[in-house]
């Protein structure tokens, strides 16, 4: 690994060094953010195709036939094609959007600034981490263009389907191999990122930045990095075993005597459940990898625009830590259907309920922060409030799914789809929107348009509830998930109008995102010039120019004298005390 000599105070010259293979954490953060934006466009398009197919399963669409000559012969989507769209939608959204933007995107940009450091601890590793993620995305997307198309096994890649090769269906050949390779590369990238986040937060904090003065965003990025570190290592190990089963003839996950397409397979003795354990040991913490940074942003934004200190800062920190810890003990609640011992199921269920405690602490503290506040309803604030709303809604349905007896009924229905989209998908994305509107002035030196932002918020907020709330009712009515066509079943046919409504809502919600993209790119060039601290916020990023110079603090070394959320302190000259203000600012 050869690396250039780095001068902390001079920005590199030249386009490639500055914008492509940049070592600057801010540029890398933006690169991650745009990688996620690109991915979310793919993921969203796939979901629209799926929603269209569900309500028009027999429609002949000419361009389907052009795009997929074999999988959509005559313009009619095959069930296999539907499954591969579902797999790629889930995989791209979970890995390249929800894991990438909140943590690697915003975290890279703002963690070093918020702790008063000039850069991440290992800039070269940071750059490699981004380009490795980029490579993983290329490999993943290339699965669309190989023979057989993308895999069918879902984002969870359950064997035997994912392990026995082309025999299991189109896409299970090269497509599935590319999927595993991409995930393995992604694991490596996450590991590099985690090393950087953890070392930076522990060792590069500026003078006075004690752990209990860290903004809550930093706490969530830190805990998320730990989760990613421990989780992705296990996923990588599981992926290696899966590759060996696929290509080396081993039988880790493939049971004996398996009859597939009239052929008895040569494998014996493996256990598909072994994969499920390893996968969900990663998979459940992954949920928190997606949502924790959103919680951090929400705390930051709520406190800023409520002009009040965050209610119960220490309790928030301990809640973040205990969510991270408990997140590793509950993977079994994804496997209640697997025939596990009821005693294990009971234990997993109790631990799952236990996560409700720190989650409730966080929610009550957010409400406590808002209580009696003179709230400034900026777009960032609206999205943060939306986050709280979605977090509560999605969390409540989680209580149902955490009961083994209820999960047996709900597990393969749309109830689960509604639940995880609410909490892991949309809530996390609202966290990203809040972060975007909150930090955009710092990142680009211009303000985003608030009117467009608010229209975007209200339509999106109503839209996502319109898409995902009916899914809970469908689930209770017994509508199975993963089916591509409901018209062949009497009881499901009657539910089609609900699906039709959800599809319309999805079109509308997707369409309004154009407004967001327009606002984003338009404001970069034409937005109102942003002052250093447009929100009158307290943390360190608001002490530096917008956008910050290459070494963040222009050669200065910030000294922190205050906690992160000292708003409306009695006796202080302003309604906020910056972290770098002199210690006796409110003594006058």
């Amino acid at each position, binding site marked *: *690994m*050869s*690396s250039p*000599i*780095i001068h*902390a105070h001079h920005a590199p010259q030249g386009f490639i060094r500055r914008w492509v293979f940049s*070592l600057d954490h801010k540029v890398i953060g933006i690169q991650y953010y745009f990688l996620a934006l690109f991915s979310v466009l793919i993921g969203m398009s796939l979901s629209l195709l799926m929603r269209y197919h569900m309500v028009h399963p027999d429609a002949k669409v000419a361009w389907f036939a052009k795009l997929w000559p074999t999988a959509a012969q005559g313009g009619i989507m095959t069930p296999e094609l539907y499954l591969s769209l579902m797999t790629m939608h889930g995989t791209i959204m979970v890995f390249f959007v929800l894991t990438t933007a909140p943590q690697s995107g915003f975290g890279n940009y703002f963690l070093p600034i918020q*702790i008063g*450091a*000039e*850069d991440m*601890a*290992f*800039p*070269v*590793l940071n750059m490699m981490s981004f380009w490795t993620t980029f490579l993983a995305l290329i490999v993943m997307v290339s699965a669309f263009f190989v023979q057989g198309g993308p895999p069918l096994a879902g984002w969870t890649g359950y064997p035997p389907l994912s392990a026995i090769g082309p025999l299991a269906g189109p896409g299970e050949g090269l497509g599935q191999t590319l999927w595993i390779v991409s995930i393995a590369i992604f694991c490596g990238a996450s*590991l590099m990122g*985690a*090393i*950087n986040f*953890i*070392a930076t937060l*522990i*060792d*590069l*904090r*500026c*003078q*006075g*930045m*004690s*752990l209990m003065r860290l903004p809550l965003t930093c706490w969530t990025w830190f805990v998320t990095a730990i989760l990613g*570190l*421990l989780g*992705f*290592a*296990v996923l*990588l*190990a*599981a992926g*290696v*075993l899966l590759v*060996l089963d696929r290509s080396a*003839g*081993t*039988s*880790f996950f493939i049971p*004996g005597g398996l009859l597939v397409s009239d052929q008895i397979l040569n494998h*014996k*003795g*493996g*256990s598909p459940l*072994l994969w499920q*354990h*390893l996968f969900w*040991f990663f998979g459940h913490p992954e949920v928190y990898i997606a949502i924790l940074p959103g919680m951090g942003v929400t705390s930051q934004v709520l406190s800023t625009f409520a002009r009040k200190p965050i209610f119960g800062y220490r309790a928030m920190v301990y809640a973040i830590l205990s969510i991270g810890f408990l997140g590793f003990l509950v993977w079994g609640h994804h496997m209640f259907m697997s025939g596990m011992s009821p005693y294990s199921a009971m234990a997993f269920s109790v631990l799952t309920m236990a996560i409700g405690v720190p989650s409730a602490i966080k929610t009550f503290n957010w409400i406590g922060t808002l209580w009696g506040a003179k709230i400034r309803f900026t777009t960032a604030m609206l999205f943060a409030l939306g986050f709280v709303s979605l977090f509560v809604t999605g969390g409540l349905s989680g209580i149902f799914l955490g009961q083994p007896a209820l999960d047996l009924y709900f597990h393969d229905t749309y109830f689960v789809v509604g639940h995880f989209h609410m909490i892991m998908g949309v809530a996390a994305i609202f966290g990203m929107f809040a972060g975007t509107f909150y930090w955009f002035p710092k990142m680009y030196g211009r303000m985003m348009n608030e009117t467009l932002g608010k229209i975007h918020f209200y339509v999106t907020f109503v839209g996502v509830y319109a898409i995902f709330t009916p899914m809970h009712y469908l689930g209770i009515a017994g509508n199975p998930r993963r089916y591509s066509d409901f018209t062949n079943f009497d009881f499901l046919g009657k539910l089609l109008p609900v699906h039709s409504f959800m599809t319309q809502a999805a079109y509308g919600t997707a369409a309004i995102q154009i407004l967001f993209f327009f606002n984003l790119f338009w404001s970069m060039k034409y937005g109102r010039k942003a002052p250093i601290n447009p929100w009158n916020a307290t943390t360190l990023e608001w002490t530096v120019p917008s956008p910050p110079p290459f070494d963040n603090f222009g050669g200065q*070394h910030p*000294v*922190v*004298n205050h906690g992160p959320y000292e708003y409306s302190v009695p006796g202080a000259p302003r309604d906020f005390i910056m972290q770098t203000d002199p210690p006796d600012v409110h003594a006058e």
Partner: protein
Amino acid sequence: MPGSITSDIIKPPAPPLGGGFGGGGGGSDGWGASRRASMTGLMVLLAATTMAFAAFTSAFVVRRGISNDWIALPLPRIVWANTAVLLASSLMLELARRSLKSGRRTAFNRYWTAGTVLGALFLLGQAFAWWQLNAAGIFVATNPSSSFFYLLTAAHGLHILGGLTALVYVDVQALRLRLGPGKRTAVDVSAVFWHFVDGLWLFLMVLFLVWG
């Protein structure tokens, strides 16, 4: 420090003026911060490696327990010799570090080179173990026990290879008299990593002997 494994650490900020302000472990103190960050980064890496091998181990134990097709693998005898070689190499590195602490550069070079050569020897020995198994008709897919043996030795071997790269790098720097104070971090980081993969190998041996 072009080419150093720790060279991508940014130039740390100047030492703080005056006393600390209750930074609780925070605060940057000159080169110390970058050295600490390297050590923290290493510990994080080791944690991840531990998790990956913990996952392999749990797969190993579960896979052995759930079916009756497991046939105990006759461990190639050379792995015992390999174990001794690896332990000796760790010992050499430790002696080297002690020499460096007391300023005996020549002794450091000698010990460190010995440790590096022994490390390479271990890798060759592992390759020989594979060759022996192959000759006996035991392949990756022959039995789950052999699958795990090949898998775990390969995964461990990759870590050895990574560690060896670091050892060679330090050795080359040392022999070319370029081991300045800034590279002491490289010495410590690579030595700690090496001891870790050494310990990992002992764990794997126990795994093979007890459950294999």
